[in-house]
């Protein structure tokens, strides 16, 4: 192999692939990155931990095609510290010795057999969801925090992406809270695709989309999902099993409804939470014109705040929530105002967006001891 490429674009392509490679496996090859240069083509860069796989591309002048597997972290470090400009990568014919050269510096590293590197998975595009990148980013942001970390219930360790009539939903729950983000779709689908995407992939897709815009396709078959930008393709396994029927958990009616400025409420909760016990529990109640938040720590003191709100329905007594969970829900609202609803002290609280009606966050109360 003999190729020349640009340091900057090589580095970003490398970093994308390296994020997929394994940091835990005792199999060295899984912490490696495979690079493959075809005649008259871009350089293809692969990383995988066997759960997700990434293939990225980088323009290159290929003089002699070839491929090799290199230590991922080391390669990233080397390229990161090279000056901007051209980089040359050369392999010796037989021994898998690779030389990486910039104008001033040169590194020799040992590669592994590319044949031993896991094959990049094939996804048959049996289903396809096309979505606006910004909307997808909002969906991921609004639900990612509610994904469960409890591995004894595998179906909750990911987010559900679901087509439903003329909308696309993303749902996640850790059984303390449930987050549902909806975006409208222009066309009605005949077949409603439903993908249960593992947390790891959710995280990586978020990173992948940072500098993207426009529309993006998510394709899938029974086993895998794929998402592809101009230069990067990410493939992930899905979670097996049935996501819980969450709709029946959402109360149809509530007894108290408070319309409140989202940022004001977040700020107030953050301040009060400083005085909360270790379990981050704060108490919420309403009077005729405001939401009141109180936190007490035994033997230390108490903090309270009053946030102006438009209250309809019954007066709400005290209900306790985890402050961080409450903040997570409020932060996912993209509008200025949010609706905070209650049905007595033992039923879940509900946070909703008002205008677009595109977000719903159900929060279980903490039992007040």
């Amino acid at each position, binding site marked *: 192999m003999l190729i020349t490429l640009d340091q900057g674009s090589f580095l970003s392509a490398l970093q994308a692939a390296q994020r997929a490679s394994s940091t835990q496996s*005792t199999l060295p090859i899984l912490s490696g990155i495979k690079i493959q240069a075809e005649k008259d083509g871009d350089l293809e860069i692969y990383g995988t931990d066997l759960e997700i796989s990434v293939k990225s591309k980088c323009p290159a002048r290929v003089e002699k095609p070839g491929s090799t597997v290199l230590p991922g972290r*080391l390669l990233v470090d080397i390229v990161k510290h090279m000056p901007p400009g051209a980089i040359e990568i050369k392999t010796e014919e037989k021994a898998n010795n690779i030389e990486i050269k910039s104008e001033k510096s040169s590194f020799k590293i040992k590669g592994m057999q590319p044949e031993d590197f896991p094959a990049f*998975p094939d996804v048959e595009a049996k289903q396809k969801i096309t979505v606006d990148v910004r909307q997808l980013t909002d969906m991921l942001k609004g639900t990612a925090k509610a994904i469960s970390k409890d591995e004894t219930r595998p179906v909750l360790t990911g987010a559900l992406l679901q087509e439903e009539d003329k909308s696309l939903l993303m749902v996640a729950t850790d059984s303390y809270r449930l987050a549902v983000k909806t975006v409208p779709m222009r066309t009605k689908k005949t077949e409603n695709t439903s993908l249960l995407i593992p947390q790891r992939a959710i995280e990586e897709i978020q990173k992948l989309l940072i500098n993207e815009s426009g529309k993006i396709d998510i394709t899938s078959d029974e086993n895998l999902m794929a998402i592809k930008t101009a230069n990067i393709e990410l493939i992930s396994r899905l979670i097996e099993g049935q996501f819980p029927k969450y709709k029946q958990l959402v109360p149809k009616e509530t007894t108290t409804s408070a319309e409140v400025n989202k940022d004001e409420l977040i700020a107030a909760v953050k301040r009060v939470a400083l005085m909360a016990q270790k379990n981050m529990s704060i108490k919420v109640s309403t009077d005729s014109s405001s939401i009141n938040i109180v936190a007490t720590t035994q033997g230390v003191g108490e903090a309270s705040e009053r946030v102006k709100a438009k209250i309809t329905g019954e007066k709400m007594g005290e209900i306790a929530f985890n402050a961080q969970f409450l903040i997570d829900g409020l932060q996912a609202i993209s509008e200025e105002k949010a609706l905070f609803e209650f049905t007595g002290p033992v039923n879940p609280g509900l946070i909703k967006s008002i205008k677009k009606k595109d977000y719903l966050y159900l929060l279980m109360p903490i039992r007040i001891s």
Partner: protein
Amino acid sequence: MKDSSLWEQIKGHDKTVNLLRGVIDKKRLTHAYLFCGPRGVGKAKTAATFAAAINCDQACGTCVSCRGIQNLTHPDFHYISPEGTQTILLSQVTDLIKKIHLTKQNNGYRVIIIDDAHKMLPVAANALLKVLEEPPERVVFILVASDMNNVLSTISSRCQRVNFSALKVEVVRDILINDLKISKDKADLAVMLSGGMVGEAMEIASSGLLKVRKTMVDAIVAEKPDTARSVELASLLVAAAKKRTAKIKKDQEIEVKEAMSFVEGSRGAATIKRNLETRHHRERARVEHRCYQQALVLVASIYRDLLVLKENADEKFIANVDLSFELKSAKIERAQLTSALANIDEAKQRIEQNVNPLLAFENLFFTLEAVV
């Protein structure tokens, strides 16, 4: 039919291999198998071949799937063996279960090998049991066990049992000489001493223990006890074990070095190194321990040979054929021989209880010489 297949490399289990190949040919896979039989006869190797055949009918050994199974990078293949000192931990099983709950990557089967399944901690076995009770579709478990007493009956009852018997002497001999390129003389002795276990025979052949036999026989048949000789013998046996572990340590150091050059600087590097080193340490301890047991088998073999000669049985029944001349010169009574065997058994137990091996051997040889 001429085919190149991983099956061809399995020796001495024709019936079992035919049964398993039949399962593949007739596509009659069940979701769980339990391979059981003596240690070191090739159960794990057969399991890996069966795993390859499940996704590649011929178990060709060269396609992407077969190679992935051999070097553990097949996306839908998982291999577990004891990671605890002598146990399969709960965390290993929960990690496996987590993987099983993700979709497969390919359209074939997901195959899971649990090697030394009898070493699963009860909590780990119970976690696995839940999966075996409600097996996911297109998943095949292969449990490999050499001690059925330690496999939960609730687990074994959910698996189809595949029995392996000890290998015939000729098969072990063939493997040692033709596959492992061990010299004929050494191979014959090792086979006699190993009781049909290829792994064991291989270790004996390469252990340096065989060289100590002459000194041992001289000591045993000598008419006067000699403390210095006993001490020397004991240190020779311990040295043989240490030499083996030193050699293993060298390979292990290379393995660590290679792995580290690949993961250096990455987040999990320290963990990988620690895990690798713990595993290596355990491996060395295991090998050293086994060396001592083999040394005792060797000592016992000499006394057994002497008993055989006492009964005027055919010389071909003795293990240490090359030393038959010396053995015949021995003037030891039958009763003394049997009591010596009992002493050896005692030493074996002491070493199992982690008594300092050098002391245990010295003690043994003092007693043995005193017997005469």
